[in-house]
């Protein structure tokens, strides 16, 4: 899993079966010092409570779909938690 910052939302009316009701957010991946790293991704919101500005952690690849109610859906990134605190020892 990686840290990320929610920077936006995506709305799609026409989408693959199984994705109805799934919220999509644009997430900027971060390094462990919370600096942007790499390109933003569109991630499904697996916790149903994430929103723009929030610090989250997300899972990629096959495991992303496991975060959703229907686990056999075409999703490759999903937010699985909202971060309260990050503590990194230099």
């Amino acid at each position, binding site marked *: 899993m990686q*840290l990320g910052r929610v920077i936006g939302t995506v709305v799609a009316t026409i989408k693959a079966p199984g994705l109805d009701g799934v919220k999509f957010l644009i997430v900027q991946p971060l390094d462990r010092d919370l600096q942007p790293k790499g390109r933003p991704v569109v991630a499904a919101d697996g916790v149903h409570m994430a929103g723009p500005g929030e610090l989250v*952690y997300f*899972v990629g690849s096959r495991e992303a779909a496991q975060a959703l109610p229907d686990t056999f859906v075409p999703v490759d990134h999903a937010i699985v938690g909202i971060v309260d605190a990050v503590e*990194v020892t230099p």
Partner: protein
Amino acid sequence: MKVAKVVGTVVSTISSPVFDGRKLLICDLLDTAGEAEGGYLIAVDTVGAGVGETVLILDEGTSARQVLGWETAPIRALVVGIVDEMVVDGTTIV
């Protein structure tokens, strides 16, 4: 599996249920010289590892779910061991 150094923790109240009560560790991935190679993973602890320790990380979802006995969990990376010693080309790295 990957070798990494635990450098921090993540605290989260709102999360997928599989993370409830589990410790999330920020782990810097190490190269064969024992140096941070630039990447990191947030991994779920299963062995009681802590900051400063060198650990073994399992980064494969099906195996991770098998370890936890939770076949629908949205999880991929687990800390599954604490490294006592690592030797590469005759040189002790850890």
